[in-house]
């Protein structure tokens, strides 16, 4: 029996910022305001022509949408008229559910009355505040422009405006962070009474200035004040403990919410529901069109170019940087390495219904081994990460990936070593 196609999530990328934070490894940056116009026009053209983009990828266009997420960058940096224009395009092309979750990422200290008005007018009902830290020294060290007071004030302002669905982003592993300052940040977050908190751990790679500096062993960007891996692990454990004690239960590796306030949009990524991304480096996953579906393809993934230039260049072929089909084998791998991110884990009975026993046979031994190592556990029909397994989830996920040829050219050993630990040592 065919399962009905779930409603899609829509992601809108706004890659503009006033300043670029040192830890940021996303394709956002500081661009002149003159670029905003061209960007929004292209974005809207893509949204209006979304069904054609989907067709070009041999994917099925999903018109029903029940979540919209504006990420950045700093979406609220755009003038009100641009924001309205984007929403108009969205509602023209998609059937946006009346109860859709509509989230906009905001930088604390930038929520003026004009911005709030346009967000409310457009139906935004959820705000994610990029606080990262309530300790001013820590926020300043990575280039955030706000203070603790400004962030706390924003929560109040949003509440008064009628937006209660608020998420606070926090990062464990910022320069100068200690167990004590981290607990203080957590306490501040909890005291606001927001229903959702995301806790990320500092990612170290060559796509951010701080990451590059850490890999090089330098001291710029306060890199030498970044906590070591073990301390970051500890900070994470403290967060899990404190937040759940405060009623914000962990539902995903990085996400905590009070009951009923889990992010519908983010869940689409982990549960492999369709989503359509627009803008620089935005990614989509759609059901296959009739032809690939007949060939046994499970899903189509594609992403837009990850630079502003690529995105603004002519022709969809050039602008769509990467596109791939997910085979049934790939789909099973994804179910495991995405689904296991959720605390509730993966429903093994559902997997048995969807995938052949031949395909599943390969996972039994791996699951048994990971359980014996204390990284996975069974809870009824659910397979879940243990708390230790969450911190070592890459080790678990890698097990489920089919062996592939080593990447051509090869990374240097030093680099590979660093990547085994996503955050720096010392």
């Amino acid at each position: 029996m065919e399962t009905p196609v779930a409603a899609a999530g829509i992601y809108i990328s706004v890659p503009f910022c006033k300043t670029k934070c040192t830890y940021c490894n996303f394709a956002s940056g500081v661009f002149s305001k003159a670029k905003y116009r061209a960007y929004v026009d292209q974005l809207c053209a893509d949204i209006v022509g979304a069904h054609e983009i989907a067709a070009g990828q041999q994917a099925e266009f999903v018109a029903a949408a029940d979540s919209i997420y504006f990420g950045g960058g700093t979406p609220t940096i755009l003038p009100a008229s641009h924001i309205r224009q984007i929403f108009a395009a969205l509602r023209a092309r998609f059937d946006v559910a009346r109860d859709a979750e509509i989230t906009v990422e905001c930088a604390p200290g930038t929520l003026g009355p004009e911005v709030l008005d346009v967000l409310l007018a457009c139906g935004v009902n959820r705000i994610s505040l990029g606080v990262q830290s309530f300790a001013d020294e820590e926020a300043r060290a990575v280039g955030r422009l706000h203070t603790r007071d400004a962030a706390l004030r924003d929560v109040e302002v949003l509440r008064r405006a009628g937006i209660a669905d608020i998420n606070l982003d926090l990062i464990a592993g910022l320069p100068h962070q200690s167990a004590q300052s981290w607990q203080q940040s957590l306490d501040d977050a909890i005291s606001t009474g927001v229903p959702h908190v995301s806790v990320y751990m500092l990612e170290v790679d060559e796509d951010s200035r701080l990451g590059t500096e850490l890999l090089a062993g330098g001291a710029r960007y306060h890199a030498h004040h970044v906590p070591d891996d073990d301390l970051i692990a500890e900070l994470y454990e403290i967060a899990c403990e404190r937040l759940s004690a405060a009623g914000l239960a962990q539902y995903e590796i990085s996400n905590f919410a009070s009951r009923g306030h889990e992010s519908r949009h983010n869940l689409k990524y982990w549960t492999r529901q369709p989503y359509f991304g627009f803008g620089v480096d935005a990614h989509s996953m759609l059901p296959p069109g009739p032809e690939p579906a007949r060939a046994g393809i499970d899903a189509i993934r594609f992403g837009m170019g990850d630079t502003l230039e690529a995105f603004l260049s002519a022709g969809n072929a050039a602008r769509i940087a990467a596109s791939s089909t997910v085979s049934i084998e790939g789909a099973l791998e994804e179910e495991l390495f995405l689904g296991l991110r959720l605390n509730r884990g993966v429903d093994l009975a559902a997997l048995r219904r969807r995938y052949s026993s031949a395909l599943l046979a390969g996972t039994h031994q791996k699951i048994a081994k990971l359980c014996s190592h204390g990284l996975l556990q069974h809870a009824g029909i659910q397979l879940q990460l243990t708390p230790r397994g969450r911190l070592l989830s890459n080790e678990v996920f890698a097990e489920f990936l089919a062996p592939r040829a080593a990447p051509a050219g090869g990374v240097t050993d030093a680099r590979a070593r660093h990547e085994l630990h996503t955050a720096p040592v010392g």
Partner: protein
Amino acid sequence: MQREFIRNFAIIAHIDHGKSTLADRLLELTGALSAREMQAQVLDAMDLERERGITIKAHAVRMNYTARDGRQYQLNLLDTPGHVDFSYEVSRSLASCEGALLLVDATQGVEAQTLANAYLAINHGLEIIPVINKIDLPSADITRTKEMIEQTVGLDAKDALPVSAKTGEGVPDVLEAIVKRIPPPKGSAETPLQALIFDSWFDPYRGVGVFLRVFQGTLHKGQKIRLWSNGKVFEVETLGVNTPKPVEIEELKAGEAGFLFANLKNVADTKIGDTITDDDRPAIEPLPGFEELKPMVFAGLYTVDAHEHTLLREALEKLRLNDSSFFFEPESSVALGFGFRCGFLGLLHMEIIQERLEREYQLDLITTAPSVRYKISRTDGDVVEVDNPSKWPPQGEIAKVEEPVILATILTNEEYVGGILKLVEEKRGRQKGFEYVSASRVMLTYELPLNEIVLDFYDRLKSVSRGYASLDYHLAGYWESPMVKLDIMVAGDAVDALSIIVHRDFAYDRGRALAAKMKELIPRQMFEVAIQAAVGAKIIARETVPAIRKNVLAKCYGGDITRKRKLLEKQKAGKRRMKRIGRVDIPQEAFLAVLRVGENA
């Protein structure tokens, strides 16, 4: 050519003292090569040779020279390898000459290498012509250089020739001196054939080529020749000389040098120093001085990727075609899988082979710590030779260990003597001589265990002397020493490829340093990993790699699953490049660290 118009000579020089440049100049002056044909430094053919500025294989070039007396002479330049590892090859090249140019850099003076080869030449009774090079440089000191030649080599440097090989100044006098001062070869073209093999190489189209010097008799095309050491008989297909372009000739008479091809398939048949004679009319005895070359330094070679093992074997076989002094046999290591135990003449030789394998055959290699060959007397009375730590008998079965010892000659400037003495003492050296060879130049002679040389001695010597020390050595016997096998255990398993043989007194420090280094290099695993250094059953050092606590990707930027997958795949690939021993993944660098651990110890 009549014998009296033939001159066979070699050039003895230290690296960078200008041997190749002088050779080029001689070729140019005798018209062997036009300036247009000159490729700088014609004699150093291999890329590696040109890069390192040393000659690895010997060559022979014939030049025709019209001397100032108006007569035509045939000058044969028999080039010699320029490094201590190849001293036997040098000795065979020198044995094929009647004279040698002793080339000394006027800004540097005599170096240990030059000295060793000069002594070798004197012992062979060669006429030696001192040539002082680089006189065009402002820092050239001809008088001092002459003094040093007289004091160190013990030669009369009154008639030393000042030249600049670079500008060509003085080089015509060198040609004249070769004719006047070096005696013509002896021997008769009529007596039974005696020819000396002084080098061989492999030509993919024609098989093995042999460089030789005819001492007695005549060699001609089609002749049935016999190799003295193994009695094998071949027919001469091609005779030739390099001018330096190869030119075929009909015969080589007593006194002349050249090359031959005789459908020889195997370089191992053409041993350097062997005598070639006529199969129908053999000589009564071989030429003197033949020795079987024995490797002195041993190491295991493994490919990082186990699938390349066959490629490594093929590459080693090909290299061996060209280099009979290097030996290999299959070995296997629990840690590294299948590889080859290789024997080399010395450290440079090892490095060259390694580099050629990596460069010419694109192999990614792991080399185990170099070792020497010990003589072990067992308690049951047996004597065994062991060059591989994994073959070391249990300590309880060893009655006596003898280790090879070298006699090292080090020439340096006074100000570095302090540092060098400290180094050689640390390396268990015993002083044999301490001599001022000029006001500020010192010659040290030391007996040193070869074991201490193979690890890091060259690098250390270079650093304590800032490069102003030269070293020459030769094997000088054995010492009875309390050597022990030091094992490194990772998570309880001894890793054979990390075992080394050390002097008992050094075991503790080495063990500690190695364990600390391993802790640094072994990435954190899913569980705590104990690293122990042990001699026999006794643990002498312990370190712990704590379990990894976090390896997690937090954010999923805009649903970019592909990026996540790539990162996971990269991590996985990184692990596959490591060697898994027991449950522990050990990176390649850990195996290389054994080679370097002495530095900080």
